[in-house]
């Protein structure tokens, strides 16, 4: 048998699968309407602007630039730093200058850093209002709110502790690594781009084997089960890439973002997410013996991936192995921090391992199934 023939058969299967999806209006609705609705919902949510955050353990960098010494016997900036460090769940790391602290934030060594400006002690001792700058990372949505709250709390305690301070200590938030555009749209949008592509493709591909009744007949042709798996994954990945492109355009153009990476990088990332979603769906489908089972399998995947996405709770080391989390990380590193895609090679390899593992599992499971049920 020719070595090109399996390849040709996979292409034929891919084409057939795409045709099947195109002819299935509900599937098309899922593919294209879902992202539009999701981005629309985000826009609505941003208008309402009622996102809440909870206090969580934080590592603060502190850059103390205050050189004034107008209050005898006590260094007020040092005292303020000590007050901040005394709060529950707060760890303080001192930095000599702002650029070191910025690099610490960039490398995720700290969650946030506070800059105490020169003249801090002088202003307080003269009953003049003063400010501290709280620098947070755009790549950590939860951390931003928590950092502001903690510094504000530290300022209150600091004033209460000393008793004589009449002037205000204002906390000025500075968000780093922000592309031009709405901060919330950037943060949540990035999550939705990854989430929608992964989940929408997993949703439609989870029916790809269990719902493909004629496939059993197709397997009586020279097509092998390996070719079927590869053909299906290719087809759904292509659909996902088209969907991903639509989402990216909606995200970038709709919110007038100016991301710190090029479109090709983003397309590669969404393609990886699409591939991972397609593999996840096909694995579910190969295990399932009914459409209901496939739906349940998808729900399990959906809830699991959402909970473990890291957007809502810290999932620790798990985040380094789940494709959606890794995809989010790639988006943050490239679109927010401006890193090259190659810098995320570890994430890419982990996603590829997930994909390869999924393909092998799907093949092994399908291998055991008979042609005609």
């Amino acid at each position, binding site marked *: 048998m020719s070595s090109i023939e399996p390849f040709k058969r996979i292409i034929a*299967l891919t084409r057939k699968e795409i045709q099947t999806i195109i002819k299935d209006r509900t599937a098309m609705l899922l593919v294209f309407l879902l992202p539009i609705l999701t981005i629309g919902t985000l826009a609505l949510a941003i208008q309402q602007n009622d996102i809440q955050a909870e206090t969580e353990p934080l590592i603060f960098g502190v850059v103390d630039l205050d050189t004034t010494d107008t209050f005898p016997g006590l260094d007020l900036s040092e005292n303020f730093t000590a007050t901040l460090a005394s709060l529950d769940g707060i760890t303080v790391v001192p930095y000599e200058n702002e650029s070191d602290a910025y690099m610490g934030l960039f490398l995720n060594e700290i969650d946030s850093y506070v800059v105490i400006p020169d003249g801090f002690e002088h202003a307080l001792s003269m009953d003049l209002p003063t400010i501290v700058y709280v620098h947070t990372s755009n790549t950590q949505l939860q951390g931003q709110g928590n950092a502001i709250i903690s510094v504000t709390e530290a300022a209150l305690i600091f004033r209460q502790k000393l008793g004589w301070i009449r002037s205000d200590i204002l906390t000025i938030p500075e968000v780093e690594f922000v592309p031009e555009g709405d901060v919330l749209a950037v943060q949540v949008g990035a999550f939705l781009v990854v989430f929608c592509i992964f989940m929408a493709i997993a949703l439609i591909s989870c029916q790809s084997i269990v719902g493909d009744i004629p496939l059993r007949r197709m397997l009586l042709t020279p097509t092998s089960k390996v070719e079927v798996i590869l053909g299906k994954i290719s087809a759904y990945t292509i659909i996902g890439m088209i969907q991903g492109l639509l989402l990216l355009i909606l995200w970038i153009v709709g919110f007038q973002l100016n991301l710190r990476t090029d479109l090709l990088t983003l397309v590669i990332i969404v393609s990886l997410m699409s591939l991972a979603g397609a593999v996840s769906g096909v694995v579910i489908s190969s295990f399932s013996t009914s459409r209901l089972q496939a739906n349940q399998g998808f729900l399990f995947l959906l809830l699991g991936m959402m909970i473990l996405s890291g957007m809502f709770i810290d999932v620790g080391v798990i985040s380094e192995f789940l494709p959606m989390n890794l995809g989010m990380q790639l988006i943050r590193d490239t679109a927010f921090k401006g890193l090259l895609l190659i810098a995320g090679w570890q994430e890419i390899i982990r996603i590829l391992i997930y994909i390869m593992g999924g393909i092998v599992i799907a093949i092994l499971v399908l291998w055991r199934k008979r042609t005609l049920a």
Partner: protein
Amino acid sequence: MEQLANIPVFVEKNYFAGSRFDDALDWIEERSDREIHTQITGQLRESNEEIAVEGRVLNVARRGRIRRIALLINSVQKGSTDLNGIVLTIGSDKTEREEVAAKQLVLMNWLRRNIHDDFYYDGEEIDHAVKRVQELLAYTEVDAQIWGTSKEGQPMYIKGTVTNARMERLRVGLLELRTTPKSIAKESSAQVLTIGGRETAPEIMRELISIVPDVLAHKMLFTPAYARTRGKVENVIVAENLTVTVDNNFDIIRDVSFKLPSGKIMGIIGESGSGKSTTIRALIGDISPTKGQVVIGGVPSTQRKQVKPIFGFVPQDLGYMYQNFTPLENIIEFGKQYGIPERELVRRGKILLREMGIFEKGNQSVNTLSGGEKRRASISISMVHRPQLLILDEPTSGLDPDMRSELWDYLDYLNQEYGTSMIVVTHYPGEAEYCDTVGVFMRDRSLVAYGSPAELKASLPGKGYAVGIILQQPRPGIATLLQGVKGIIHVLERGELIKVFSEVPLIEMSERVVRALQAKDIQIKSVKPKMGVDMTDYFILITGRQLEV
């Protein structure tokens, strides 16, 4: 090599003298889509040897002064025997160009579609060959047999797989062939050789395209990979001691053995749970038999990759088609998996849909078709790769009697037109009458009878005949009542008709029955002393559903 054993019973024959060669070409061309075979008596021009050969017509050429038939030799009646399996070019009795000067030609139309996918070109037609091979290479592998001469002028025969087909400058066609180690001139190992047309001299080739082909082709025969398994065998399927055991050591089928001659239709009838479907699944390799083996088209069914193109399967469930696709799209999508080019699939698909009477429905979604139309679409899908064996699982279920009869007409047509052997599972015993052979399955006993419908019916008492009786008034328990009549072996009640089976001469038996009924004051409406038995009678009797007297 094709075998003469497969010559059909009915053929259209015509005789031509070598001097009427043009008329012979006309005759063939008028039947261009038919499978034509020819018996030639003539002279090999090179050796002046008298020969008589038979072969399949590959094509005819009529261009310029060239008039020839390309013949794939199947048998040699007279002359050198090593002509078997080679292509000879046949010309008129006066030809100075072709290999054989024909004195007599007996042309035979086998009255069926030419389903052979191999194609022939003369050496000088290499540019046409290259174009066609290029199209095929996009989908599948192409095997080639080349008869020609080497650079040194030695005669060569090369067999191999085309690795490249290209047009060089000035429309010079070139093929590259990975050869199998066989050559007329000398033994050679596997290698890649370049093939050029014979009309272009090596010096000119060197001048034109800086390449001197390794072989200058005189004759070229190509076979796409999807047609590799087209060779005919005496029995299209041979099942030997097929046994399938489930986990609790229960044999679903046990020692099922049968052979189906090529071109024949076999019916499988049996009770529910008797193992019909299991047998089919074991035949196609969907489940592995615990014991025994199946050979389809000469290939053991365990060699799944090789055996798949030999058979087609029509499932009972009409859901095994893409419902949103049209019948033609289904044909194309399934057909592509055999490596058949899309253009060829469209051509074959249209022919099949026309033959199956649903051509005008070819562009409607399958889900808009009626049950009968869907069934015919499903059959068309399974026929597109021109299988030697078509297996149909209860194709008439859910159809009314008229449509069932119509579907059998279609199956019969496909059997005749394409020479396709068929295995048809049916739960209507009467449909077994359409088949050449019938296998009868019984619960816990697997295959209990196998033979032609006539043979099976002749195995009953009365050798295919029974006494038929209709009473004035239906009488329940008539079989028990006739129990005492000497010589009766079986009594069968089918509606108001009573059939009495006996080894006693039927005239005598009918008199005995009439006397017995009259003795009980039972009025008789009609008596037919010699009434034919049908397969439904046979099935009812053999499965023991009827009271045995």
